[in-house]
């Protein structure tokens, strides 16, 4: 992820801020300029709860450039409790604790590092909710 792109999207990357369409009520993630449901420009920021469930998950052994050091990693579709489904890595979890339907919550983690001296990109990952 390019550094400038990450900076531009810091509110969605770090706080899961999406959009709510005041015309049709759709909850959208990430933030939009125009509602992808009804086309309205009447949108307001809407911070998502960060809670969701694993819809499906895979263990990745061959990664694109920049993600090699994290292999093997868990890549999941997470269905947020507000509705949107997002792509995210799972973290702080063992394979035996990863399963479809598991409740997860958002945490902020390192996504990419641009070399030893370059900027570090932080954004969301998900981890199992603590019991109780």
């Amino acid at each position, binding site marked *: 992820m390019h550094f400038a792109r990450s900076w531009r999207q810091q509110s969605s990357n770090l706080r899961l801020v999406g959009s709510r369409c005041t015309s049709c009520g759709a909850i959208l993630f990430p933030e939009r300029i125009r509602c992808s449901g009804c086309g309205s420009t009447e949108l307001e920021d809407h911070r998502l709860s960060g809670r969701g469930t694993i819809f499906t998950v895979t263990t*990745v052994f061959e990664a694109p*450039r920049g993600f090699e050091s994290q292999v093997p990693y868990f890549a999941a579709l997470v269905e947020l409790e507000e509705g949107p489904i997002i792509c995210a890595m799972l973290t702080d979890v063992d394979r035996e604790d990863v399963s479809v339907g598991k409740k997860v919550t958002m945490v902020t983690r390192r996504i990419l590092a641009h070399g030893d001296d370059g900027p570090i990109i932080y954004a969301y990952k998900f981890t199992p909710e603590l019991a109780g």
Partner: protein
Amino acid sequence: MGDRIEIVGIGRTCAKERWTRGLVDLTVEAAGAALDDGGDVSPSAVIVSNALGGALGDQQNLGTFTASSIGLGKVEAHSVSCDEASGGGALRLASALVGAGMHEAVLVVGAEKTSDALPDELETVRANGLDATREAGFGFGPAVASGLGMQRYGAEHGIDRSLFYHLASTAHLHGAKNPFAFLPWELSFDQYIRSPIVADPLTVCDLAPNCDGGAAVLIRKGSGKSSSSVHILGSASVSVPTGISEPITSLSLPAAAQCAMLALRDAGLSIEDLSLLDLHDSSSFIAALSIEAVGLAKRGEALLLARDGHFRFDGPAPLWTFGGLKARGNAPGADGLYQVVEATLQLRGDAGKGQIDGADRALVQCLGSFGATAVTHVLG
């Protein structure tokens, strides 16, 4: 479709790692073969399809550079890029130029040069064919997306991973008869089941191999005088909202389904009228959904039909008769045009060892951005 478009010339390069050929060389090699095949038909426009070249630091504005390199002089030239659907998109736009009467004949060329890039660089650039920010930017590429899809397909339909073998083995069975194929050998079950995992349960053998390649088609407005020539009987292109979650959650490809339906309607044909098909098989998951999208199989039954030989040469619906992306090789910007060249060879009766007896109608469909873009052509 109004006046039908005639395919008067075809050309292709071997789909391999072509160390001595650059991107423009590949367009020139394929284009030259199509011009030679087209006899005295001279195009006044060139459309070149390419998916990755600019992002990989290779030649941009390929239409103009290709036209210049093959000595066409003063022509109209453009480049088209829509991920792995680029070739189909270029042919559809070229057909529109001819159909609108803007040009008598148009040369359509597709090419990709993947072997100059290191594998992780290539995977990164290919991932940007998905959502560059929300998918590629979070470590999700086409292989990861297909791994997620295979997980869900197996769970939803109660299908064991090993059944996906029958899609890859069908493609390889046919690719073994194609001297231009990248992997022209049959795939054993043992090879498939032992291949390294990329994104569980997806393995190397569930992915079409990246390769270099070029394919070209020379078209003009159909004269209708020759019953032996090949025409575009129908075509369509459909794009739907992007995102890998839709195919994975719904286990369907809405763009592919609607696009095939519209192209067949345009041609006035039904799927039962077809002698052969070529569908997008960039991964086993996409191949299964493509088969179900165009109506060759009911939901969840694509692998069962493949197991029963339904899509083999001698089956009721021959598929990937030159090996598809899986065995012929995946040169993303050229994929859609390889399909058209290979289908034309079948319809001409020039398909060699892989010839389908009496082939007279073919449907080819290419997809981009994990099925968000679909382009379909019906030939006959």
